[in-house]
């Protein structure tokens, strides 16, 4: 009990010490970082769980690209809906929307909330609008500049907007929703004439009832479903979505963990210095009769108190920042998320304590092993604690932490491996940079020379500071580049008059009229490609899934229906890699895209079986070609020779270049062909950009923590060298150096460090960006001169400020006072 109290008492008396402050600050930053993502992840997960069945709108949902007519016998309540994309227009304004045609019973569970006017109070109502009317969400109203009561055109039918959709089952807010939502009556779809053979449709069949009959129905239904049809229970529905979310959440959490680990470095340095400065105290306490157990209690209490204080303060910061993060990634749903949970507090506090333990135990273990004889002989070091014990203790604490956030063993190994590689690279680069610094030092003079000498002399500290700051600046820069470069680069590499609009869903009877319309307005269009939707089912007579190793069976290519086309000329931007192009030959021949061939292990000569509706088509692979997917031409995985698909219902697709001064043509086109979907590439890119911006904004917020942790490392290492610096400053001042000389020396040192870190970060960012652009996106190499100016400036400012604030007082204390303090 005494030592508990004594520990707290000594802690209170030493609370102003630099080491404790840095340790606490680093801990707050680290825990703040992981609790920010922890809180938000928890809120989203709970939002999903709490919605339960209302999330699906049913207890059981079956989705299918084709209507299902035959069902196992059941006594459940049912509802069905049809979802498809179509243009919605009003006057000259038009917009692609996701339409859901529903019956009177939709939804079976949960509710759809409709408001009479935008931003007015909403009420739960059936999703089925009155005859001749639709419900649309606020986004569509804004895009079409429409109001409730206005008429809109969908295909060949006109509808009145009867209300604003505020909430619907399964919706957490417009996270990555590309097209606004419209509800219409199932019995009015026909009148729009939008549905064409080959249109991408999703039939939604919903069931609700008691658990037992539901389970029996599900069991009976499962074996009858095809791979493109899915059965989702309310629990599985939430689980599926949660699984998808958990992946994204994982990576955000790992980003947050990097800040925590950098904080661990700062904590370790601060704890080491604390131990060094407390060897005498520990020896004295031993001398006065304290046993090892008592000392252990004393230091454990101090550590635990600091750990709890720092973690709780970090949690408080996390609670504030998670709201900002929510605003970035779920702007529409922020107000609908459940309030803060308690569980993440526990997780964050335990993370904080683990990080603190891992970082400071080796230092404290040495402290406990200080021999009492040190009171007489100051040169006696602590007894060497078995190095493997402290290494094991802190190693496992950190490993537990990483495992906890990374989840599975593979990710842990990957993370630890990448971290180790990063540390090696950063240390190597930092060492090289310091060698370069030596050259600069030789040609500099006066205080600058002195400052640089300091940086080079504290080689370990400088390496650590450089490494930490380079890492932080590099990641911040890389994100900024990814955001600006990739999309910009992609845009720029498109040829001047690359197609910028897709025309989808062209019915066979419209083909001539569309071609004439485009010709009349002098618009350059690609060839018209017929599209038939079909599912790949077999290879050489064996079910395709059975030909693949189990881990690759779950590929999207097998789960969804493919767009199949036929043509005689090899499309531009396609390059033949193997076999011969079928050309004018008619018959069961196909050309397959090289990526798909690789994924599904296909070769020339293989015969593939496809199912389209109730038809089966078999064809032999006679060529394999590469496709330039970003060419903005209609691109296909599978191209047939003319013949086999002739009899199947098809609609066509084309891409067209609309010059900026000719966009006025489009409203006329939409009016003339209301059933044809016009996809504007600009809007598509803008959508991708917006999603990118959301994700990157969220990560950048977390990188703020990383920068702060980097500054904590700088401060901690400086504190560790403060005594030696003070001694030198005293000597220099006694020898006649003025304060300004010392100040200039310090500034030179920190600015040099910051500039070096900035330069290294620029180098890393350029290399990483070049690799990403070339390997992943096939973009030309591009250098960023501004980066080489911005990062060193930012580094000089941040390192300079934190360094100066930590050390400035050594230039201010009168030499006499310093001499006494050091004695």
């Amino acid at each position, binding site marked *: 009990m*005494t030592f508990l*109290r*004594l520990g707290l*008492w*000594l802690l209170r*008396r*030493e609370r102003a*010490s630099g080491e404790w402050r840095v340790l606490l600050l680093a801990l707050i930053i680290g825990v703040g970082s992981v609790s920010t993502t922890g809180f938000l992840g928890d809120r989203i997960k709970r939002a999903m769980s709490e919605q339960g069945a209302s999330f699906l709108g049913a207890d059981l949902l079956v989705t299918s690209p084709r209507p299902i007519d035959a069902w196992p016998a059941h006594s459940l309540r049912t509802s069905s809906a049809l979802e498809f994309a179509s243009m919605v227009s009003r006057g000259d304004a038009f917009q692609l929307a996701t339409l859901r045609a529903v019956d009177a019973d939709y939804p079976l569970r949960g509710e759809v909330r409709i408001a009479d006017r935008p931003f007015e109070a909403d009420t739960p109502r059936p999703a089925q609008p009155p005859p001749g009317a639709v419900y649309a969400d606020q986004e569509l109203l804004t895009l079409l500049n429409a109001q409730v009561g206005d008429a809109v055109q969908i295909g060949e039918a006109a509808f009145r907007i009867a209300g604003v959709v505020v909430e619907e089952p399964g919706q957490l807010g417009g996270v990555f929703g590309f097209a606004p939502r419209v509800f219409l009556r199932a019995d009015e779809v026909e009148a729009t004439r939008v549905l064409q053979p080959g249109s991408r449709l999703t039939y939604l069949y919903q069931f609700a009832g008691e658990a037992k009959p539901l389970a029996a129905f599900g069991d009976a239904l499962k074996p009858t479903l095809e791979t493109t049809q899915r059965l989702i229970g309310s629990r599985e529905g939430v689980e599926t979505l949660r699984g998808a979310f958990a992946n994204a959440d994982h990576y955000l959490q790992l980003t947050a963990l990097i800040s925590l680990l950098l904080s661990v470095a700062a904590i370790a340095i601060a704890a080491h210095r604390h131990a060094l400065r407390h060897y*005498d*105290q520990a020896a*004295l*306490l*031993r*001398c*006065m*009769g*304290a*046993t*090892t*157990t008592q000392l252990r209690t004393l230091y454990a209490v101090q550590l635990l108190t600091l750990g709890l204080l720092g973690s709780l303060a970090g949690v408080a910061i996390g609670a504030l920042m998670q709201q900002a993060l929510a605003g970035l990634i779920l702007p529409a749903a922020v107000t609908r998320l459940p309030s803060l949970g308690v569980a993440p507090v526990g997780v964050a506090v335990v993370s904080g304590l683990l990080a603190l333990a891992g970082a400071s135990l080796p230092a404290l273990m040495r402290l406990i092993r200080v*021999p*009492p*004889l040190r*009171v*007489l*002989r*100051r040169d006696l070091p602590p007894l060497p604690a078995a190095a493997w014990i402290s290494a094991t203790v802190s190693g496992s604490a950190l490993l537990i932490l990483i495992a906890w956030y990374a989840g599975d063993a593979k990710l842990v190994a990957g993370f630890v491996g990448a971290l180790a590689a990063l540390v090696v690279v950063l240390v190597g680069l930092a060492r090289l940079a310091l060698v370069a610094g030596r050259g600069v030092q030789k040609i500099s003079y006066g205080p600058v020379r002195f400052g640089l000498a300091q940086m080079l002399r504290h080689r370990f500290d400088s390496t650590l500071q450089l490494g930490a700051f380079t890492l932080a600046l590099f990641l911040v820069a890389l994100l900024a580049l990814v955001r600006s470069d990739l999309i910009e680069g992609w845009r720029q590499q498109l040829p001047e008059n690359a197609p910028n609009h897709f025309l989808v869903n062209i019915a066979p009877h419209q083909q001539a009229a569309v071609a004439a319309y485009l010709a009349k307005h002098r618009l350059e269009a690609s060839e018209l490609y017929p599209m038939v939707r079909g599912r790949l089912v077999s290879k050489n007579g064996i079910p395709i899934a059975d030909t693949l190793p189990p881990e690759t069976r779950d590929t999207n290519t097998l789960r969804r229906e493919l767009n199949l086309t036929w043509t005689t000329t090899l499309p531009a931007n396609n390059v033949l890699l193997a076999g011969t192009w079928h050309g004018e030959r008619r018959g069961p021949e196909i050309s397959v895209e090289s990526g798909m061939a690789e994924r599904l292990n296909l070769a020339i000569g293989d015969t593939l079986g496809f199912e389209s509706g109730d038809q089966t088509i078999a064809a032999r692979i006679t060529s394999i070609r590469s496709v330039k997917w970003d060419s903005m031409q209609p691109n296909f995985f599978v191209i047939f020779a003319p013949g086999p698909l002739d009899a199947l219902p098809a609609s066509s697709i084309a891409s067209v270049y609309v010059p900026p001064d000719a966009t006025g043509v489009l409203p006329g086109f939409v009016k003339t062909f209301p059933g044809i979907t016009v996809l504007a590439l600009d809007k598509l890119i803008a959508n991708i950009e917006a999603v990118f911006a959301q994700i990157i904004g969220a990560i950048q917020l977390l990188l703020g923590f990383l920068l702060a942790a980097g500054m904590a490392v700088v401060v901690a290492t400086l504190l560790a060298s403060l005594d030696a610096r003070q001694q030198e400053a005293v000597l220099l001042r006694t020898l006649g150096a003025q304060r300004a000389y010392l100040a200039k020396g310090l500034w030179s040192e920190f600015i040099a460090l910051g500039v070096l870190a900035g330069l290294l970060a620029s180098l890393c960012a350029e290399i990483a960006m070049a690799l990403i652009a070339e390997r992943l996106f096939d973009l030309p190499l591009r250098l960023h001169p501004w980066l080489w100016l911005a990062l060193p400036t930012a580094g000089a400012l941040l390192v300079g400020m934190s360094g100066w604030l930590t050390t400035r007082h050594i230039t201010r204390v009168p030499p006499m006072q310093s001499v*006494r*303090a050091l004695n």
Partner: protein
Amino acid sequence: MTPPDSAQFPNAVVAARALSQQVPTADGMLAILSEVELAVQAGDTLAVTGASGSGKSTLLGLLAGLDQPTSGEIVLLGQRLNDLDEDARARLRAGRIGFVFQSFQLLPALTALENILLPLELAGRADARERAAHWLARVGLAARAGHTPRQLSGGEQQRVAIARAFATDPEIVFADEPTGNLDADTGARIIELLFELNASARTTLILVTHDDALASRCQRRLHLVAGRTQEAALA
């Protein structure tokens, strides 16, 4: 050889027999102390003198149980130290042994009063605060209770250290060159204080010094030459 024990030295609070200490060096083992024999009775004052490197501080450390001898036996407060591990020796010291050091060894974060409070707290004394204030007053620093060591002169710091050594009513006080870091005048005043407090508390005082004036204040003197004793009883 029969070990020294309480029976052998009925009134001895500290006793050593055939005490030797060797340390490894590059050229083999170096003998710091050789065959030291010693018995100090309760209430005695003993000065350990000798030139630098003669083994004075090593002997002090061994007698106080801060270190283990290479060979020989020590009995401290009736306990054979050879049988005790580091923690048991610490428990034996708690509240019963006081220390005064050349470099004062005050904790810089604590005030003068709190530095005296520290051993009292460690010994779990209920009246710790009152006793600490009492002892601070005894060394004439009542007015400086809230000052930290940095705000005190060397002499004042050593007075705080002396108050700290006596505060727990120890049976033995070990002092290692208590005036070594002080000027002559201050040193003399510190010696006065040390012996005055020692006399009134009837504590056994063992001090290490190379200062003859200080040594001459003790009842006995143990002179070390190259780790061997040459004891001379002082009048």
